[in-house]
C-alpha cells in the first residue's frame, strides 16, 4: 500500500465537514409602504432608504450561525496526540457576541480513570454577514464519545457533534508543504505507516502542540515569507521538542535564501547546479549514478554533512533541541529524479529516524510525593499560620491563667474579673477568627511547581514540570501557562465527584489558560513538559581513573547547591554563578576521591546521602527527581550526574492572584554515562 500526496485543497468532502444552520428568526419592522406614497424622491434618497432598510432588516434579524469544523490535517490526526481544530463560524444574521466551546473527553479506561469532559472556550465576536476561522488545539484521551462544538450568545445557540472515529490515524502524520500545486508525486512506499498530508502554508497551525502528532514536516519549493509569527514560533517550538523537518531543494533556489527559511536551513544556499547523483550507499544498492540532477549549491552553516557529491553537500542534518532538520539539496520534483523508480526508497532513508529517542528520565510525581510535601512541617507553614496559632494558644492559656489568679487573689472585685474575663474570651475568639480566616498571609491556595531541566543538545533543555495546585477554599483558579509547553497531563483526579469541569481558554497565539474549580482542601496534580533554551553546558570526558568536567554557564541564572555524583563518589561544587566557566578534574577511583573535595566512598551512587538545607528541596530531590525505586538500576550502571538548583527560576505556570502563593523549585541536571572497564 502506498500513499500519494494529494494537492492541497480547502474543500473537504461533505462527510468531513458537518455543518449546522440555525434557523433565522425574523422580527421585521413594519414599514407601511403607503407612508411614503406621493413623495418625490431623488435617486440618492431612494438608495439611502434602501441601505437604511437593509441595515434595519439585518439588525432586526437573529444571527444565523453556521459551524464548519476542520479536524486535524485535512481530516487526519494521530490518536492520542493533540491535533488542530479549525472552526469556521459564518454569521448571516445580525452581529453576535458569544463563546465558542469545544468539549472533548479525557480520562477513561486507557488512562485508568473515569471519563470527564474538558472544555475549550474562546470568546468570539461575529459581525453581521461575516465569517471567522478559529484555531484551537484539542487533546481528547479517547474518541468513542463525540466532540461537541457549540457557539452560544445571549440570543442564539448553535451546536454540532463530530464523531472523531472517522478521522484518526494510529501513526503520526507526515506533512508536506509546497508552493501552489507544484507537488511532486511523492510516494514513500508500503513500508511507511505514516499518513502523508499536503498542506498549504496558511494551514500550518499557530500552536506547537497541534504539531505533536506530526512526525515529519517536509518543505519543498516553498517560501516561508507568509508564515505568521505565531506559526514560525510554533514550528520552532515543535522542532526543539523533537519534531523532524525535512527541507527538499528545488530549482527555485532564491526561495531558500529568504530569512524565514534560513532560520531552519543548516546550509546557506548559493545557487543551482546539475550534478551526477549516486543514490548509494544502500546495502543492496547497485544502481548507477543519475546524471543531470538539479541540486542546490550551498555552504554548510551548522550540522553534519551526511552525503556530498562534487563538492556540493547533498544531505545535511542538524539538530535543534531534541528535534532534527534534514536538508536534501536535490530537486526530486523535477526530472530526472521525479521519474526515478528508487525515489520512494531513497526518501524513506532520508526520513528514517537515526535511532530511538533519548527519553529523559521521568521524575516521580504522584500522591505519595505530594503527601510527603504537604505533611512536611516546613511546608505546612506556607498555607497554615502555625506560628500565629501557637502564639494565640499560648497567649490564651496565659490570659486564662492570669484571670484565674486574679479571681483567687481577690485583688479586684470578682464581678469585674468575671466581666473582663468574658470579654477576653470573646475577643480572643473573634480576633482569632478574623486573623485565621481573612487576615495575615494565609493564602487561598498554593501552586507548587517542581521542575527538572534535563540538559539536551545545543543549549536546549527539556523541562519536566510537576505541578500541584491545592486549595484551602472553594474557588476557581486560573492557571496561565507560558508559551512553549507541550504536554499537560493530569496525574491524579481524586475519586470524588467534581462539581465543575476544567476549562481551557486558548487565544489565537497559542497561549493557554486553564480554569480549575477546586473545593476546600482539594488539589490537582499535573505534569507539563517544555523544551526551552538554557545555555548551560556540562561536558564530561573520562580519562582513565579521572573525570574531566567542563562547565560553561551562559544562562541568565545562577545555580546553587551544585553536586557532581559518580558511582562511589560525590563532590559538592557549591554555587555556580551565571557566566562561570571552568574545567575541573575529579578522581573516579576510591582512594583519590576520598582525598579530594570531600568525596565519599559508597558502593553505588546514593542520592539519599545528599543533604539540602531546605526541607522541601530535600523531599523533591529524594522522592521525585531521583526516586530510589526507579533510578537505582540506572545509577549503579555507571553514570555521572551533575545537578544544581536554579536560583529564581522563570515561572512557566502561574496563578496571577495575590491570594495564591507560587513556589518554584527548579533543578538542572546532566546525566552522562561513564565508560565501563570493558569499554576502555
Amino acid at each position, binding site marked *: 500500500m502506498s500513499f500519494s500526496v494529494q494537492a492541497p485543497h480547502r474543500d473537504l468532502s461533505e462527510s468531513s465537514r458537518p455543518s449546522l444552520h440555525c434557523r433565522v428568526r425574523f422580527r421585521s419592522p413594519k414599514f407601511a409602504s403607503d407612508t411614503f406614497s406621493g413623495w418625490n424622491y431623488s435617486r440618492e434618497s431612494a438608495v439611502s432608504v434602501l441601505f437604511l432598510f437593509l441595515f434595519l432588516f439585518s439588525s432586526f434579524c437573529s444571527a444565523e450561525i453556521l459551524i464548519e469544523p476542520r479536524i486535524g490535517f485535512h481530516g487526519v490526526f494521530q490518536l492520542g496526540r493533540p491535533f488542530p481544530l479549525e472552526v469556521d463560524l459564518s454569521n448571516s444574521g445580525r452581529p453576535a457576541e458569544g463563546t465558542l466551546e469545544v468539549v472533548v473527553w479525557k480520562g477513561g479506561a486507557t488512562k485508568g480513570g473515569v471519563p470527564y469532559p474538558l472544555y475549550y472556550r474562546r470568546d468570539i465576536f461575529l459581525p453581521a454577514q461575516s465569517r471567522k476561522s478559529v484555531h484551537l488545539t484539542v487533546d481528547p484521551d479517547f474518541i468513542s464519545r463525540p466532540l461537541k462544538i457549540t457557539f452560544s450568545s445571549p440570543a442564539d445557540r448553535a451546536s454540532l457533534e463530530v464523531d472523531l472515529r472517522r478521522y484518526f490515524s494510529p501513526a503520526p502524520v507526515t506533512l508536506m508543504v509546497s508552493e501552489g500545486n507544484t507537488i511532486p508525486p511523492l510516494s514513500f512506499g508500503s513500508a511507511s505507516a505514516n499518513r502523508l498530508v499536503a498542506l498549504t502554508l496558511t494551514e500550518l497551525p499557530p500552536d506547537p502542540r497541534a504539531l505533536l502528532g506530526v512526525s515529519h514536516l517536509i518543505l519543498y519549493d516553498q517560501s516561508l515569507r507568509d508564515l505568521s509569527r505565531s506559526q514560525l514560533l510554533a514550528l520552532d517550538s515543535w522542532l526543539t521538542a523533537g519534531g523532524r523537518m525535512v527541507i527538499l531543494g528545488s530549482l527555485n533556489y532564491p526561495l531558500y535564501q529568504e530569512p524565514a527559511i534560513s532560520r531552519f536551513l543548516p546550509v546557506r544556499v548559493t545557487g543551482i547546479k546539475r550534478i551526477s547523483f549516486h543514490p548509494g550507499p544502500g546495502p543492496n544498492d547497485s544502481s548507477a549514478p543519475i546524471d543531470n540532477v538539479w541540486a542546490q549549491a550551498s555552504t554548510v552553516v551548522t550540522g553534519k554533512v551526511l552525503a556530498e557529491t562534487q563538492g556540493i553537500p547533498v544531505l545535511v542534518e542538524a539538530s535543534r533541541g531534541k528535534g532534527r532538520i534534514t536538508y536534501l539539496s536535490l530537486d526530486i520534483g523535477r526530472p530526472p529524479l521525479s521519474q526515478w523508480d528508487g525515489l520512494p526508497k531513497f526518501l524513506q532513508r532520508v526520513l528514517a529516524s537515526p535511532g530511538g529517542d533519548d527519553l529523559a528520565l521521568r521524575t516521580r510525581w504522584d500522591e505519595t510525593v505530594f503527601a510527603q510535601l504537604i505533611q512536611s512541617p516546613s511546608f505546612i507553614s506556607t498555607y497554615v499560620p502555625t506560628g500565629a496559632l501557637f502564639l494565640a494558644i499560648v497567649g490564651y492559656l496565659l490570659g486564662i491563667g492570669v484571670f484565674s489568679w486574679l479571681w483567687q487573689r481577690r485583688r479586684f472585685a470578682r464581678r469585674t474579673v468575671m466581666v473582663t474575663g468574658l470579654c477576653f474570651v470573646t475577643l480572643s475568639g473573634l480576633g482569632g477568627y478574623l486573623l485565621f480566616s481573612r487576615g495575615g498571609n494565609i493564602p487561598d491556595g498554593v501552586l507548587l511547581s517542581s521542575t527538572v531541566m534535563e540538559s539536551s543538545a545545543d543549549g536546549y533543555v527539556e523541562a519536566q514540570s510537576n505541578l500541584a495546585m491545592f486549595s484551602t477554599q472553594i474557588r476557581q483558579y486560573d492557571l496561565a501557562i507560558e508559551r512553549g509547553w507541550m504536554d499537560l497531563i493530569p496525574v491524579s483526579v481524586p475519586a470524588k465527584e467534581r462539581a465543575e469541569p476544567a476549562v481551557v481558554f486558548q487565544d489565537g497565539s497559542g497561549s493557554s489558560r486553564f480554569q480549575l474549580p477546586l473545593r476546600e*482542601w482539594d488539589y490537582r496534580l499535573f505534569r507539563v513538559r517544555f523544551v526551552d533554551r538554557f545555555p548551560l553546558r556540562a561536558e564530561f570526558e573520562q580519562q582513565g581513573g579521572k573525570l574531566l568536567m567542563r562547565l560553561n554557564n551562559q544562562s541568565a541564572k545562577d545555580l546553587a547547591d551544585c553536586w557532581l555524583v559518580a558511582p562511589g563518589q560525590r563532590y559538592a561544587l557549591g554555587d555556580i554563578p551565571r557566566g562561570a566557566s571552568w574545567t575541573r578534574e575529579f578522581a573516579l577511583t576510591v582512594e583519590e576521591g576520598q582525598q579530594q573535595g570531600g568525596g565519599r566512598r559508597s558502593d553505588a551512587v546514593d542520592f539519599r546521602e545528599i543533604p539540602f538545607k531546605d526541607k522541601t528541596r530535600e523531599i523533591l530531590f529524594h522522592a521525585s527527581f531521583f526516586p530510589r525505586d526507579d533510578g537505582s538500576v540506572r545509577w549503579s550502571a555507571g553514570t555521572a550526574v551533575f545537578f544544581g538548583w536554579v536560583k529564581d527560576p522563570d515561572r512557566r505556570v502561574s496563578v496571577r492572584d495575590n491570594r495564591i502563593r507560587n513556589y518554584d523549585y527548579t533543578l538542572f541536571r546532566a546525566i552522562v554515562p561513564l565508560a565501563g572497564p570493558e569499554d576502555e
Partner: protein
Amino acid sequence: MKDNPVLRESLEVFFGEGHGFAVYFYLLIILAPVEFFSLYLPSLDAQMWSGSASLFKVSAVTTLLLMVYFALRVANQEFAPWRFKATKRWLREDGLAIATVGQGQLAFLSLHVALSMLLCLPFLIWAAAIARTPLPRVAGTLLLLMFYAFSYSIWGLATLVLWERRAESRQVFIRCWFFFVVVISALFYLPVNPVAFLLAYLGRQELAPLSIAGWKAPAAVAHFAFHLLVAFTGLMAYRWALRRDLAV
C-alpha cells in the same frame, strides 16, 4: 434560683474555693496541644490530605470527649467531694424540697457545661477558621457539644443520688457509661454514636438510616431520638432516686 442553697454551695466550692479550676485546667491543657499538633498529623480521611483540613473535626471531637467526661465527673461530684453536703442531708436535715435540690444541681451542671464550652470556644473558632469550616456548621457543632454533654451527664447526677455513699461504684459506673456512649454505641448502630454523628455532620456525609422490620428512620432522627431518650431516662432516674432518698 440565685438563692438556691445547693447551687450556691456548688458555686462556692468550685469557684469560691477554687476546687473546680482543675477541671477547666485539664480541659484546656489537653485540648490546646491536641489542636496544635493535629496540624502536623496525617489526616484520618483519605480525601483530606492534611491535618489542617481536619483541624476543626479533630478539635471538636476532642472537645466532645473532654466535655462529656468532665461533665460526668463534675455531676458525680468527683472534685472536692468532701466539701459537698450529701443530698440526703439537704432533703432531710435542711428540709429542702426535691425540686429545689434537683434545680440547684441541674443548674450548676448547666453552668459547668456552658463555662466549659465558653472556655473551649476560642480554640474551636480558630480551628474552624483555619479549616475553612462554614459558620453555620460551627454553630451546629457547638450546640451538639452542649447537647451531648448535658444529656450524658444527667446520668452523673442520677448515680450521685443513687449511690451517694459508694463513691468507687459511682466512679466505675461513670467511666463505663462514658466508654459505652462514645465507643461501644458505635458497634450497635453507628449513627447513634456522638463521634460518628459529629464527623458525619462536619463532613456532610449521609449516615445509614435505621431500619427495623421494614420500617426506616433517618439517621438524624434515630440519633436525636436516642439521645433524648438517654437524657429523659437519666432525668427520670435522677428524680426517682431523689424521691427514694426522701422516702427512705
